[in-house]
Protein backbone atom coordinates (compact mmCIF):
# COMPACT_ATOMS: atom_id res chain seq x y z
CA UNK A 1 0.00 0.00 0.00
CA UNK A 2 1.24 3.48 -0.87
CA UNK A 3 1.50 6.15 1.81
CA UNK A 4 0.88 9.85 1.26
CA UNK A 5 3.75 11.99 2.66
CA UNK A 6 3.02 14.79 5.12
CA UNK A 7 5.36 17.83 5.08
CA UNK A 8 5.75 20.34 7.90
CA UNK A 9 6.22 23.97 6.83
CA UNK A 10 6.39 26.29 9.82
CA UNK A 11 3.11 25.93 11.70
CA UNK A 12 1.39 24.10 8.85
CA UNK A 13 1.21 20.49 7.72
CA UNK A 14 1.07 20.18 3.94
CA UNK A 15 -0.32 17.09 2.27
CA UNK A 16 -0.07 16.93 -1.50
CA UNK A 17 -1.92 13.89 -2.78
CA UNK A 18 -0.04 12.72 -5.87
CA UNK A 19 -1.34 9.15 -6.26
CA UNK A 20 -4.66 7.59 -7.18
CA UNK A 21 -5.43 6.54 -3.59
CA UNK A 22 -6.94 3.20 -2.68
CA UNK A 23 -9.48 3.38 0.16
CA UNK A 24 -6.89 1.91 2.54
CA UNK A 25 -4.35 4.61 1.61
CA UNK A 26 -6.99 7.26 2.36
CA UNK A 27 -7.77 5.79 5.78
CA UNK A 28 -4.04 5.57 6.55
CA UNK A 29 -3.61 9.25 5.65
CA UNK A 30 -6.39 10.16 8.09
CA UNK A 31 -4.58 8.35 10.91
CA UNK A 32 -1.10 9.64 9.98
CA UNK A 33 -2.36 13.22 9.91
CA UNK A 34 -4.00 13.00 13.35
CA UNK A 35 -0.72 11.70 14.78
CA UNK A 36 1.36 14.39 13.09
CA UNK A 37 -0.94 17.20 14.30
CA UNK A 38 -0.48 16.06 17.89
CA UNK A 39 3.27 15.35 17.52
CA UNK A 40 4.06 18.73 15.90
CA UNK A 41 1.43 20.94 17.55
CA UNK A 42 0.71 22.47 14.15
CA UNK A 43 -2.41 24.62 13.90
CA UNK A 44 -3.04 24.29 10.19
CA UNK A 45 -3.45 21.49 7.64
CA UNK A 46 -3.45 22.10 3.90
CA UNK A 47 -4.55 19.28 1.64
CA UNK A 48 -3.54 19.89 -1.96
CA UNK A 49 -5.69 17.90 -4.41
CA UNK A 50 -4.39 19.53 -7.61
CA UNK A 51 -3.23 16.13 -8.87
CA UNK A 52 -6.50 14.30 -8.11
CA UNK A 53 -8.52 13.72 -11.27
CA UNK A 54 -11.56 12.56 -9.29
CA UNK A 55 -12.99 12.92 -5.80
CA UNK A 56 -15.60 10.23 -5.17
CA UNK A 57 -17.84 9.86 -2.11
CA UNK A 58 -15.16 7.92 -0.21
CA UNK A 59 -12.43 10.52 -0.66
CA UNK A 60 -14.99 13.28 -0.04
CA UNK A 61 -15.91 11.68 3.26
CA UNK A 62 -12.21 11.31 4.12
CA UNK A 63 -11.68 15.06 3.58
CA UNK A 64 -14.65 15.88 5.83
CA UNK A 65 -13.40 13.49 8.50
CA UNK A 66 -9.88 14.96 8.42
CA UNK A 67 -11.36 18.45 8.83
CA UNK A 68 -13.38 17.30 11.84
CA UNK A 69 -10.48 15.43 13.45
CA UNK A 70 -8.09 18.35 13.07
CA UNK A 71 -10.70 20.74 14.47
CA UNK A 72 -10.88 18.62 17.61
CA UNK A 73 -7.07 18.71 17.75
CA UNK A 74 -7.03 22.53 17.46
CA UNK A 75 -5.97 22.71 13.82
CA UNK A 76 -7.66 24.29 10.82
CA UNK A 77 -7.98 22.33 7.53
CA UNK A 78 -8.10 23.89 4.10
CA UNK A 79 -8.50 21.85 0.90
CA UNK A 80 -6.80 23.52 -2.06
CA UNK A 81 -6.38 22.99 -5.80
CA UNK A 82 -9.66 21.36 -6.74
CA UNK A 83 -9.98 21.02 -10.52
CA UNK A 84 -13.09 22.55 -12.14
CA UNK A 85 -14.24 19.19 -13.57
CA UNK A 86 -13.91 17.65 -10.10
CA UNK A 87 -16.01 20.44 -8.56
CA UNK A 88 -18.75 20.00 -11.19
CA UNK A 89 -18.80 16.23 -10.64
CA UNK A 90 -18.87 16.53 -6.85
CA UNK A 91 -21.93 18.75 -6.93
CA UNK A 92 -23.76 16.41 -9.32
CA UNK A 93 -22.80 13.41 -7.20
CA UNK A 94 -24.55 15.15 -4.30
CA UNK A 95 -21.49 15.61 -2.08
CA UNK A 96 -21.54 18.89 -0.20
CA UNK A 97 -18.16 18.60 1.63
CA UNK A 98 -19.71 19.91 4.84
CA UNK A 99 -17.40 21.78 7.17
CA UNK A 100 -14.53 21.92 4.69
CA UNK A 101 -12.82 25.21 3.95
CA UNK A 102 -11.40 25.51 0.45
CA UNK A 103 -8.96 27.83 -1.31
CA UNK A 104 -7.80 27.98 -4.92
CA UNK A 105 -4.14 27.23 -4.21
CA UNK A 106 -1.61 26.50 -1.45
CA UNK A 107 -0.65 30.17 -1.07
CA UNK A 108 -4.25 31.28 -0.51
CA UNK A 109 -4.78 28.34 1.81
CA UNK A 110 -1.86 29.50 3.96
CA UNK A 111 -3.26 33.04 4.03
CA UNK A 112 -6.65 31.70 5.10
CA UNK A 113 -5.12 29.74 7.98
CA UNK A 114 -2.95 32.69 9.06
CA UNK A 115 -5.99 34.99 8.98
CA UNK A 116 -8.19 32.68 11.02
CA UNK A 117 -5.41 32.17 13.60
CA UNK A 118 -4.91 35.92 14.00
CA UNK A 119 -8.68 36.38 14.39
CA UNK A 120 -8.54 33.96 17.30
CA UNK A 121 -5.65 35.90 18.87
CA UNK A 122 -7.58 39.15 18.50
CA UNK A 123 -10.54 37.62 20.30
CA UNK A 124 -8.25 36.39 23.08
CA UNK A 125 -6.83 39.93 23.44
CA UNK A 126 -10.29 41.42 23.72
CA UNK A 127 -11.17 38.93 26.45
CA UNK A 128 -8.05 39.82 28.39
CA UNK A 129 -8.74 43.57 28.07
CA UNK A 130 -12.27 43.02 29.28
CA UNK A 131 -10.97 41.17 32.33
CA UNK A 132 -8.44 43.90 33.11
CA UNK A 133 -11.14 46.55 32.95
CA UNK A 134 -13.41 44.53 35.17
CA UNK A 135 -10.81 44.01 37.87
CA UNK A 136 -9.48 47.58 37.91
Amino acid at each position, binding site marked *: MERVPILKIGDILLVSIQV*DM*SDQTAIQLQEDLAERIVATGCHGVIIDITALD*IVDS*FVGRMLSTIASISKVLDAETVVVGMRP*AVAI*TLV*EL*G*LSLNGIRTALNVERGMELIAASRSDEWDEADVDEDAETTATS
Partner: protein
Amino acid sequence: MTAGVDLGVPATQAIRSDEDVVRVRQLVRTTAVAVKLSLVDQTKLVTAASELARNTLIYGGGGTAEVVTVEDGRRRGVRIVFADGGPGIPDLDQAFTDGFTTGGGLGLGLSGARRLVDDFDIWTAVGEGTRITVTKWSR
Protein backbone atom coordinates in the same frame (compact mmCIF):
# COMPACT_ATOMS: atom_id res chain seq x y z
CA MET B 1 -31.83 1.89 -21.69
CA THR B 2 -28.83 0.48 -23.43
CA ALA B 3 -28.64 1.26 -27.11
CA GLY B 4 -25.73 1.15 -29.53
CA VAL B 5 -23.32 -1.35 -30.97
CA ASP B 6 -20.33 -2.75 -29.15
CA LEU B 7 -16.99 -1.93 -30.74
CA GLY B 8 -13.85 -3.93 -30.27
CA VAL B 9 -12.98 -6.36 -27.53
CA PRO B 10 -14.15 -5.50 -24.03
CA ALA B 11 -11.50 -5.19 -21.35
CA THR B 12 -12.38 -6.94 -18.11
CA GLN B 13 -11.02 -6.04 -14.69
CA ALA B 14 -11.61 -8.30 -11.72
CA ILE B 15 -12.73 -6.48 -8.54
CA ARG B 16 -11.43 -8.33 -5.50
CA SER B 17 -9.58 -5.65 -3.53
CA ASP B 18 -9.14 -1.94 -2.94
CA GLU B 19 -6.36 -1.83 -5.50
CA ASP B 20 -8.69 -3.34 -8.12
CA VAL B 21 -11.06 -0.39 -7.63
CA VAL B 22 -8.10 1.88 -8.50
CA ARG B 23 -7.40 -0.28 -11.59
CA VAL B 24 -11.04 0.01 -12.72
CA ARG B 25 -10.75 3.82 -12.49
CA GLN B 26 -7.58 3.77 -14.58
CA LEU B 27 -9.05 1.44 -17.23
CA VAL B 28 -12.20 3.58 -17.52
CA ARG B 29 -10.12 6.77 -17.75
CA THR B 30 -7.94 5.35 -20.57
CA THR B 31 -11.03 4.23 -22.51
CA ALA B 32 -12.84 7.55 -21.97
CA VAL B 33 -9.80 9.43 -23.30
CA ALA B 34 -9.64 7.10 -26.33
CA VAL B 35 -13.26 7.86 -27.36
CA LYS B 36 -12.60 11.58 -26.77
CA LEU B 37 -15.10 12.27 -24.02
CA SER B 38 -14.78 15.84 -22.72
CA LEU B 39 -12.76 16.34 -19.55
CA VAL B 40 -15.90 16.88 -17.45
CA ASP B 41 -17.55 13.77 -18.91
CA GLN B 42 -14.39 11.71 -18.30
CA THR B 43 -14.39 12.90 -14.70
CA LYS B 44 -18.07 12.08 -14.24
CA LEU B 45 -17.71 8.61 -15.75
CA VAL B 46 -14.58 7.72 -13.75
CA THR B 47 -16.26 8.95 -10.55
CA ALA B 48 -19.39 6.87 -11.27
CA ALA B 49 -17.17 3.85 -12.03
CA SER B 50 -15.34 4.33 -8.74
CA GLU B 51 -18.62 4.33 -6.78
CA LEU B 52 -19.98 1.28 -8.59
CA ALA B 53 -16.72 -0.69 -8.38
CA ARG B 54 -16.62 -0.05 -4.63
CA ASN B 55 -20.25 -1.26 -4.35
CA THR B 56 -19.34 -4.41 -6.28
CA LEU B 57 -16.51 -5.05 -3.81
CA ILE B 58 -18.27 -4.13 -0.54
CA TYR B 59 -21.87 -5.22 -1.15
CA GLY B 60 -21.42 -7.80 -3.92
CA GLY B 61 -18.43 -9.47 -2.30
CA GLY B 62 -16.34 -8.82 -5.42
CA GLY B 63 -17.00 -9.28 -9.12
CA THR B 64 -15.95 -7.82 -12.45
CA ALA B 65 -16.03 -4.61 -14.47
CA GLU B 66 -16.21 -4.99 -18.24
CA VAL B 67 -15.33 -1.86 -20.20
CA VAL B 68 -16.18 -1.51 -23.90
CA THR B 69 -16.42 1.32 -26.41
CA VAL B 70 -19.80 1.63 -28.14
CA GLU B 71 -21.23 3.55 -31.09
CA ASP B 72 -24.79 4.40 -32.12
CA GLY B 73 -24.09 5.87 -35.57
CA ARG B 74 -23.88 9.50 -34.39
CA ARG B 75 -21.59 9.31 -31.41
CA ARG B 76 -19.24 7.11 -29.48
CA GLY B 77 -19.32 6.21 -25.86
CA VAL B 78 -17.99 4.04 -23.08
CA ARG B 79 -20.08 1.28 -21.55
CA ILE B 80 -19.20 -0.47 -18.31
CA VAL B 81 -20.87 -3.55 -16.89
CA PHE B 82 -20.38 -4.23 -13.18
CA ALA B 83 -21.35 -7.77 -12.23
CA ASP B 84 -21.25 -9.66 -8.97
CA GLY B 85 -22.67 -12.93 -7.64
CA GLY B 86 -23.49 -11.42 -4.26
CA PRO B 87 -26.69 -11.25 -2.23
CA GLY B 88 -28.55 -8.93 -4.64
CA ILE B 89 -30.53 -5.82 -3.63
CA PRO B 90 -33.88 -6.60 -1.94
CA ASP B 91 -35.33 -3.08 -2.13
CA LEU B 92 -34.19 -1.11 -5.18
CA ASP B 93 -36.20 2.05 -4.37
CA GLN B 94 -34.52 2.25 -1.01
CA ALA B 95 -31.08 1.59 -2.52
CA PHE B 96 -31.56 4.56 -4.87
CA THR B 97 -32.51 6.96 -2.08
CA ASP B 98 -29.85 9.58 -1.40
CA GLY B 99 -28.40 8.98 2.03
CA PHE B 100 -29.59 5.40 2.41
CA THR B 101 -26.77 2.98 3.22
CA THR B 102 -26.29 -0.42 4.80
CA GLY B 103 -22.53 -0.20 4.53
CA GLY B 104 -21.61 2.80 6.66
CA GLY B 105 -20.89 5.07 3.69
CA LEU B 106 -22.67 8.24 2.67
CA GLY B 107 -25.37 6.47 0.69
CA LEU B 108 -24.54 8.41 -2.47
CA GLY B 109 -22.97 5.56 -4.47
CA LEU B 110 -25.91 4.23 -6.52
CA SER B 111 -28.02 7.39 -6.77
CA GLY B 112 -24.95 9.58 -7.38
CA ALA B 113 -23.54 7.25 -10.04
CA ARG B 114 -26.88 7.25 -11.87
CA ARG B 115 -26.83 11.05 -12.04
CA LEU B 116 -23.31 11.07 -13.49
CA VAL B 117 -23.93 8.84 -16.52
CA ASP B 118 -26.24 9.02 -19.57
CA ASP B 119 -27.67 5.47 -19.49
CA PHE B 120 -28.10 3.41 -16.36
CA ASP B 121 -29.52 -0.09 -16.25
CA ILE B 122 -29.72 -2.40 -13.26
CA TRP B 123 -30.60 -6.07 -12.91
CA THR B 124 -30.62 -7.67 -9.48
CA ALA B 125 -32.01 -10.84 -7.92
CA VAL B 126 -31.85 -11.73 -4.25
CA GLY B 127 -29.41 -14.57 -3.72
CA GLU B 128 -28.11 -14.37 -7.30
CA GLY B 129 -26.30 -11.07 -7.67
CA THR B 130 -26.39 -7.66 -9.29
CA ARG B 131 -25.45 -6.38 -12.74
CA ILE B 132 -25.28 -2.67 -13.45
CA THR B 133 -24.68 -1.28 -16.94
CA VAL B 134 -23.75 2.36 -17.44
CA THR B 135 -22.94 4.32 -20.60
CA LYS B 136 -21.53 7.78 -21.15
CA TRP B 137 -21.76 9.24 -24.68
CA SER B 138 -19.61 11.83 -26.40
CA ARG B 139 -21.42 15.07 -27.24
